[in-house]
């Protein structure tokens, strides 16, 4: 019994490490943004890390992940190198997309990370296409398709889920319900705020739970992943979560009260995981783990800072396959 508990704690520690790595990378990204080193938009995942980490823990490297613009954390959870992620935010040539995309464009082909996407819901049919291809190729892969609660009223969501259900594709639709589509609460944008019920109309299984415990996320998403892999049946999973920062860096989040935010922070899945480790794991190991995360974050920032910017000459060869004159 003791052995099993130890094993569980080792596993929890590995998930905690990823969540902490994402949290700390994004805190540093926010700092760099405030200093003008990162431009454009920056949508932080802070508070939601347990969703991406728990969900991606159920996958193999071959499986596909596609998500929205709140994508840094999920990319890290799928295996992207922190330096490549940070350098992309900085717009550096060493970034995961050569510095050409930026925050919303976390692509990582070796890890089958099919990108962050800036148009709400636009990526959902894309994920369906990836799932179609894996069924077509009979390669046993599963696609996880993440999106926010703001996406479920849009064309792409319905077209994507409709096709996946019709063709019984190996995909899991994960709605990260953080209760706000930008600044407007769910209750003011949806007549039925239980998003998971939308699955009923398409005749596919659904699930709904809070993402307070990263292990529960892993276990519940794992069921849907197995269903996709073994039965080629899509599932719509609504994971209830909360972002502690604004929609983007330019959003102070004044549409919610300090009390609400404080209440949510008490349930911070990162802290919850750490408390479990404090109680049941080795304190020295925990300290070493956290120190190693700090070192990794520091190295990622230094890598981004020291990397060169892309040269304008890359624009044409990446727009088409080889430049052509007009």
């Amino acid at each position, binding site marked *: 019994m003791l052995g099993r508990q130890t094993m569980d704690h080792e596993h929890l520690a590995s998930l905690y490490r990823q969540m902490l790595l994402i949290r700390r990378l994004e805190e540093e990204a926010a700092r760099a943004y405030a200093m003008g080193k990162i431009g454009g938009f920056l949508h932080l995942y802070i508070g939601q890390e347990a969703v991406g980490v728990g969900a991606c823990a159920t996958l193999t490297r071959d499986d596909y992940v596609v998500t929205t613009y709140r994508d840094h954390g999920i990319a890290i959870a799928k295996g992207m190198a922190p330096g490549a992620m940070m350098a992309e935010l900085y717009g550096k040539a060493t970034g995961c997309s050569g510095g050409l995309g930026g925050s919303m464009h976390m692509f990582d082909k070796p890890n089958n990370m099919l*990108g962050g996407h800036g148009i709400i819901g636009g990526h959902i049919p*894309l*994920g*369906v*296409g990836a799932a179609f*291809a894996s069924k077509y190729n009979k390669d046993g892969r599963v696609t996880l398709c993440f999106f926010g609660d703001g996406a479920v009223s849009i064309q792409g969501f319905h077209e994507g889920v*409709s096709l996946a259900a019709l063709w019984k594709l190996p995909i899991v639709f994960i709605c990260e319900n953080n209760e706000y589509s930008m600044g407007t609460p769910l209750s003011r944008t949806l007549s039925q705020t239980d998003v998971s019920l939308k699955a009923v109309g398409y005749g596919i299984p659904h699930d709904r739970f809070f993402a307070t415990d990263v292990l529960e996320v892993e276990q519940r998403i794992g069921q849907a992943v197995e269903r996709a892999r073994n039965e080629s049946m899509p599932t719509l999973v609504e994971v209830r979560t909360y972002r502690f920062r604004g929609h983007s860096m330019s959003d102070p989040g004044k549409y919610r009260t300090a009390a609400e935010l404080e209440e949510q922070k008490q349930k911070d899945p990162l802290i919850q995981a750490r408390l479990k480790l404090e109680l049941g794991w080795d304190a020295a190991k925990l300290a070493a783990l956290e120190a190693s995360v700090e070192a990794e974050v520091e190295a990622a920032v230094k890598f981004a800072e020291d990397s060169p910017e892309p040269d304008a000459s890359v624009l044409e060869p*990446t727009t088409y*396959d080889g430049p052509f004159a007009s």
Partner: protein
Amino acid sequence: MTQMNMVQAINSALRHEMKRDDRVVVLGEDVGKVGGVFRVTQGLFDEFGDDRVIDTPLSEGGIIGCAIGMALYGLVPVPEIQFSDFIFPAYDQIVSELAKFRYRSGGEYPSKLVIRTPVGGGIRGGHYHSQSPESLFIHVAGLKVVCPSNPHDAKGLLLASIRDPDPVLFFEPKRIYRAAKGDVPDEDYTVPIGKAAISREGKHVTMIAWGAMLYEALAAADQAAEQGVDCEVIDLRTLWPVDIDTIIESVKKTGRVVVVHEAPKTCGFGAELIALINEKAFLHLEAPPVRVTGFDTPFPYTLENEYLPLAHRILPAVLETARY
């Protein structure tokens, strides 16, 4: 060689490529059992099965979005949009996703697929079944745009498009789907993307056209010849990347240009062609370049033959340009 019309030639290209490459799949509204509203995909469902010739719901954004995902995964989808007038629900997918994938993934994820769609007037379809939206796609960096005018080019360009590393919009002029006939090779061949054809050589006026309007330009050229005006007619075949070298070479010879297209005049592709000609051959021009186009109005149901830039509208423009 086999005598074919455009529909048969395009069908033959799809069949050829699906046999050659099992990554090629066809999807769209009514493309499977029905064989497409214009019967372009007829027989493919029976030959290749329902996992390669896929009937979809009425869901253009879903069709194109799903095809993009397939392409990222390594399949080679050839989605059909039933009429190019129906492409607008998928415009976001095409502009925001398809055209940008190679760029925004730093070259890691090229997304290559071919969107086939019937274009233009000629069937009294009114404004929901007759438009020519090519310039809306030419304007978007990352897309290639093709529009064949005959069965030989249709098959060869479609095979080239399917094998091209970039996404291609393949516009099929529905007015000549069955009217344009010609010999089509049975063996494997391609017509290169980005290369125009000179359909008629001449020395007085350069006419630029594509798709169904090529035949109107040629008819006008025949009529102009009776009045002593010798026209060179260029069939663009590929609209983007445009074969500007062939155009400039011709304009340097004639010094006079008439561009013909079905789409409305304002911001139509003719505007870009004339801008390029002005930039590259201004001092060779002997007369102001002229556009003969559709009107800046919705595509009319009853006035189709007035709206379309048919030979009776092209001829006066050619004569005026020649005599300027």
